């Protein structure tokens, strides 16, 4: 009756709309099926847990990166055919017309189902992203050892 809880570890390296969407769909689906789910966000993936409309960066390069690489679920575009934001607009419209759940609601569903969102400390340092730039539901920043510990205990590991 009380079998060990199955676990899923997702490494989200990508910050594209399509890949972030796939990540949150897999995470919420797994959590809905009773699995323990850990998402580890690194490099571009940090955009998926950044607050909307917040510019990151401290130094010159960091600020430039913050402007050219806007984070937050409303800012990210598809990995292909983005065409300077037109693709993002088109995909969002097409998904809305079909009634696909939008990213913010999808992420909230994952959070409500107990999915853990872990930011990568090293990527945050490189890109000059602080905890204040991230949504409050994230855990404290972690490193590779923490991710590997979760991955080792998991029956499924995905790298997106």
């Amino acid at each position: 009756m009380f079998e060990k809880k199955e676990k899923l570890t997702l490494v989200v390296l990508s910050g594209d709309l399509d890949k972030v969407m796939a990540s949150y769909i897999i995470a919420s689906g797994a959590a809905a099926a009773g699995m323990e789910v850990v998402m580890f966000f690194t490099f571009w993936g940090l955009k998926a847990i950044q607050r909307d409309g917040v510019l990151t960066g401290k130094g010159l390069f960091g600020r430039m990166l913050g402007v050219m690489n806007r984070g937050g679920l409303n800012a990210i575009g598809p990995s292909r055919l983005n065409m300077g934001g037109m693709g993002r607009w088109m995909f969002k419209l097409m998904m809305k017309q079909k009634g696909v759940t939008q990213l913010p609601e999808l992420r909230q569903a994952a959070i409500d189902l107990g999915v853990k969102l872990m930011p990568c400390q090293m990527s945050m340092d490189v890109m000059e992203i602080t905890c204040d730039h991230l949504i409050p539901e994230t855990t404290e920043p972690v490193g590779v050892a923490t991710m590997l510990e979760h991955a080792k205990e998991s029956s499924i590991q995905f790298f997106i």
Partner: protein
Amino acid sequence: MSDSPKLTLDFKGLLCPMPVVKIAQAIKQVQVGELIEAVATDPGVMADIPAWTRSTGHELVALEKQDGKTFRFVVKRVK
């Protein structure tokens, strides 16, 4: 034996993964042995709801295509 569902839910218009997410949230609102009935329009529920019950251990009491467009299913909370 209680045959009437404790909760009746409308999943019409919802697409993957929301039917599974919503049923997972709803199952916590009923007691063990009670039923939840739902109606959806996403044909994906025909595969996904049985998969969800197999994963979670809850019981699939009924799953049927109703009129070509809607799908009705009943699940029972087991644990």
